[in-house]
């Protein structure tokens, strides 16, 4: 289940390379100070240098067999939907409140994962929402956004 994945990891390696360069540039701009009086950029410079040097070795390593990111279109679909669902949760939470968004989010994700029927996802949504309310809102008094229900 492996194949040479040129477009995947090589892109990551170059992203890390650019990140390493950016961090070093940023650190130099902050000022690394002197050996006796290190500046605020000194420590990030070390982090950036570790990333850059290790990544250069990786780039020189060249291609290697890697596991495919997504073995099928269905996997890619699930990944995109899950990432989208998470993002939507954050965007909609201040407006709808955690009760509604938790119910909708839990039921939707379970349907994406092919939970059978409609009753089970709805019950799962209700149960999870109740659990979240009892745990966070009632037991631990953590203030969660209530949206228009407030």
């Amino acid at each position, binding site marked *: 289940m492996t194949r040479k994945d040129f477009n995947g990891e090589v892109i990551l390696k170059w992203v890390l390379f650019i990140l390493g360069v950016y961090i070093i540039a940023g650190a130099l701009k902050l000022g690394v100070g002197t050996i006796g009086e290190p500046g605020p950029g000194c420590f*990030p410079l070390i982090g950036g240098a*570790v990333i850059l040097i*290790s990544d250069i070795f990786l780039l020189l390593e060249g291609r290697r067999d890697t596991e495919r990111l997504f073995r099928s279109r269905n996997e890619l679909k699930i990944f995109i939907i899950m990432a989208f669902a*998470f993002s939507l949760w954050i965007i909609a939470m201040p407006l709808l409140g955690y009760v509604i968004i938790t119910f909708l989010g*839990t039921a939707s994700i*379970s349907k994406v994962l092919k939970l059978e029927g409609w009753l089970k996802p709805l019950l799962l949504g209700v149960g999870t929402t109740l659990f979240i309310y009892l745990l966070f809102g009632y037991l631990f008094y953590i203030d*969660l956004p209530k949206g228009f229900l407030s």
Partner: protein
Amino acid sequence: MDICFTSTCLRVFSPNGSDEMEELINGLVACLSLVNLVACFSGVFLGTIVGVLPGLGPAATMALCLPLTLSFSPATGIIVLAGIWFGAMYGGSTTSILMNLPGEAASVITCIDGYQLGRKGRAGAALAIVAVGSFVAGTIGIIGLQIFAPILGTVALYFGPAEYLSIVVVAFVLLSNLATESVRRSSIMLGLGLWLSSIGISPMDGVTRFTFGLTDMTLGISFVPIVMGLLGVAEILNISMETYIEPVLTKVRFKELYPNKEEMRRSIGPIVRGSFLGFFMGLIPSCGFISTFISYSLEMRLSKTPKAFGTGMVEGIAGPESANNSSVMGAMIPFLTLGLAFSAPSAILLAALRMHDVEPGPLLFLNNSDVFWTFVAAMYVGNIMLLILNLPLVGFFARIALVKPKILIPIVCTLCLVGSYAVRNSFFDVWVMIISGVIGYFFRKWKYPPIPLVIGMILGPITENNFRKSLKIFRDDWFQFFDRPLAVIFLSIALAVIAYKIFVYLKGRSAPSGVNDF
């Protein structure tokens, strides 16, 4: 219990350790409060469930529960979190034996002989041996913690920036070189962790660093959403895409939970050896996890029938599982006495104590010794609870592993989302969690280990602090560094490991063939 009478008796019979015994008794009294008992039970129960379920590990679960523990006292908070960690070590072996499915990475080795014992009809005996072994190992580990932690805490009072810096450097070198497949990838993740820890306001200069002009970034990136993302969300995304194959559960009745005399006799040695091995390996950065493999190898070497390993040898489960449990206690010592965390779970414990304004390290024993002793006492109680839970309720816990991902994942997703929000009541943290989860998925697929990033992030501030202080202290005379023998020793160890790795790499390049991933 009459504390005065008991402590007086102890002074007579153990005059040197009487103060510590008195503190332990005080800790036990505090631990036996209803809140702490419930906290302990909740932690170990949840930890056992987490250990049974493949995917969500103790670190991600501890990160999830961290915001909830802020409502409690520091001692109660770390009792819950440590209980989860400890319980997960117990729980991981259940599915290894019953389903050939390791609940935890550390329980992988138990699958080898544990499942075979199950197939021979000795699953109950295997579970009992593992539970008893874990209890003994846990007890030995806690005793070790109780003895060594105060001593090391006292010694650590004399540590300066040079010593702390050198210990951290050794930890980073060992983390990159020993615990992972690829040194290069581990180093990249470590560098990322160090950089992420520097985002925000520089503590020594008051200068903002890498905030991209965002107000939320000025406070820095919280450690908890990163852990939830890398270890939790990434794992959830991975499990969502896997084809679920329902595991076959080996049924065990309560009355079958008895090993015979021969099995008990054979497991005593491995349990004791594993307990001490695991405890001392837990002290070494990044070595707690590999203690199970080393224990297995050790038992195989000591056995008169090494070729029988893999066919259902009691020694093959007793030793590794004992090592697994006692390594948890060993790993707690650096975090409690030095304030340095060398594993993801201890990093979360460190974060938890800091959030409670309790600074772990040598001053813990001076300013907050009640926290330490309550914690130690709770571990004794938790250990007993785990033994009681894991034997009669083994069927219940095993059934939890049968819960389908399509039911579990939506619940865990919601908990992660709400939990990361609850840390600072900030949606920024939730975004951080999601982004790190998505990126963590890619890292996972391409074998970039997340643990070095987590450790780099939690140790970054203390590393920078001690690094800059050391440079200032020794700027006038670098030879003064050699007046710090411990610092010299630790740095020498780090250099020796690096030199060895370079030697192996160069030797591998010059050989005709061979695996060499530097």
